[in-house]
C-alpha cells in the first residue's frame, strides 16, 4: 500500500512543477511581446543618426575620423551582452562558445582581448576563466535603460582612444544574441569600431548643413551616440532572445512533466491492480480453506 501512496505524492509534486513551468512560459511570452515592441522603437533613432553620419561624412570627405579608420590590431575589445537569469536553454552557452572560439583565434594571431561584460551570467562564466575582464555590469534587468550601459560604453571608447600600444584597444566588437524568430536565436559578433563608413552616394548634392560647432567635432559625438544606440539595441534584442528561449525551454519542460505524469499514472494503475488482485486471491484462498 505504501508504494501506491508514494506514487500518488510523486504525481502531485510533478503536477505542481508543471503548473510553475506553464506559468513561466506564459510570463515569458507576454514579456517577449513587450520587448519586441521596444526593439522596434529603437529603429527610428538609429536610422536618423545614420543619415546624420552620412551628411557629416560627406561634408568632410578628406577628414578621417579615428572611429572610421581601420588600425593595425594589437589588442581588441569586446562588449559581451548576456542574460541575468538562467532557465533559457542553451542561449548563453552558445554565445560563450562562439566568443571563446573568436578569442582563441585572436590569441593565435598574438592579439590580446579585453572583455566588458553586461549581464550576470557572463560575469559568472568568465570569473573562473583566464580572460581579461576590464568591466562588468550585472542586473541590467528586462527593461534595460541607456543610463545602465553608458558607463561601460564610455570606458571602452576611452580604451579605444588610448590605442592598443598603450594598453587600450584598436577595435571594438559587440557580442549578443540575434533574434531571428521565437524558435531561433543565434549568437553574433558585430564590429562597433571601426564604424562602417556610410554610403554618401545616395545623399542629395545641392545643399549642406550649417555645422555648429565644426563638422569634425560634431562627428565625434554623433558617432558616439550611434555606437551607444547599437549597444542599447543589442541589449534589448538579447532580452527578446532570453524571453523567446525561456518560452521554448519552459514549453518543453511542461511537455516533459506531462509525459512523466502519464508514466507515473500507468505505474500507479498497475500497482493498484496488483494490490486488488492480491487481495482477491487472498480472500478466495481463505474461502477455499474454510469450505474444505
Amino acid at each position: 500500500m505504501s508504494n501506491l501512496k508514494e506514487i500518488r505524492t510523486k504525481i502531485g509534486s510533478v503536477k505542481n512543477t508543471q503548473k510553475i513551468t506553464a506559468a513561466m512560459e506564459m510570463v515569458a511570452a507576454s514579456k517577449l511581446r513587450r520587448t519586441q515592441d521596444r526593439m522596434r522603437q529603437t529603429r527610428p533613432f538609429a536610422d536618423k543618426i545614420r543619415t546624420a553620419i552620412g551628411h557629416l561624412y560627406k561634408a568632410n570627405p578628406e577628414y578621417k575620423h579615428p572611429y572610421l579608420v581601420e588600425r593595425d590590431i594589437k589588442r581588441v575589445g569586446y562588449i559581451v551582452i548576456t542574460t541575468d537569469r538562467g532557465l533559457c536553454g542553451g542561449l548563453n552557452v552558445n554565445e560563450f562558445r562562439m566568443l571563446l572560439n573568436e578569442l582563441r583565434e585572436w590569441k593565435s594571431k598574438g592579439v590580446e582581448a579585453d572583455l566588458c561584460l553586461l549581464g550576470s551570467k557572463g560575469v559568472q562564466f568568465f570569473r573562473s576563466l583566464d580572460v581579461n575582464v576590464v568591466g562588468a555590469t550585472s542586473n541590467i534587468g528586462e527593461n534595460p535603460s541607456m543610463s545602465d550601459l553608458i558607463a561601460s560604453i564610455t570606458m571602452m571608447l576611452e580604451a579605444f582612444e588610448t590605442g592598443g600600444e598603450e594598453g587600450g584597444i584598436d577595435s571594438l566588437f559587440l557580442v549578443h544574441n540575434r533574434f531571428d524568430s521565437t524558435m531561433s536565436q543565434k549568437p553574433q559578433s558585430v564590429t562597433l569600431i571601426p564604424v562602417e563608413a556610410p554610403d554618401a552616394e545616395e545623399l542629395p548634392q545641392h545643399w549642406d548643413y550649417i555645422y555648429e560647432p565644426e563638422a569634425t567635432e560634431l562627428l565625434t559625438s554623433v558617432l558616439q551616440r550611434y555606437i551607444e544606440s547599437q549597444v542599447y539595441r543589442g541589449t534589448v534584442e538579447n532580452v527578446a532572445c532570453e524571453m523567446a528561449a525561456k518560452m521554448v525551454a519552459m514549453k518543453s519542460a511542461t511537455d516533459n512533466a506531462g509525459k512523466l505524469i502519464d508514466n507515473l499514472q500507468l505505474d500507479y494503475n498497475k500497482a493498484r491492480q496488483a494490490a486488488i488482485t492480491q487481495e482477491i486471491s487472498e480472500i478466495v484462498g481463505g474461502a477455499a480453506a474454510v469450505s474444505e
Partner: protein
Amino acid sequence: MATLHVDIVSAEGEIFSGEAAMVFAPASQGDVGIAPRHAPLLTKLRPGDLRVQTPEGEEKFFYVTGGILEVQPHIVTVMADTAMRGDELDEEMARVAKEAAEQQLASASKQDIEHAQQQLVEAAARYRAAQKLRGRKG
C-alpha cells in the same frame, strides 16, 4: 501657415512626433529658435528645455540632457540623449538633485569639480523646466 514637422527621438524610443509652428532648442552655442524654412543646420544640444509651439498656439516642454539637433527647411529632428516628458518631471526630485550637486561642488577635490559642474548644470536645467511647467499649470 507653414509648419514644421518635429520628431523627437531617443535611443530608447520615439518621444514626440507632430507639427509645430516654431521650435526652441538649447543648442551648444546658444539657444536657437527655429521657424519654418530655416536653413539646414546640424548642432549639438546642451542640457536644457526644448519647447515646441504647436500651430494651435499651445506649448510643449521637453527636457533634454544633451543630444543632436538636425534642421531641414520643414523637418526638425532631435536626437535626444534622454528626453523625459515635461509632465513627468518631478520638481522635488530635481531640487534634491540640484542641492546634492551644489554640495558635492562645495566639498569636491579639483578633479571632481568639472564633473560636478556638469551635474549642476543638468540639475539646474531640470529644475527650471519643472518650475516653468508648474507656473503654467498653476
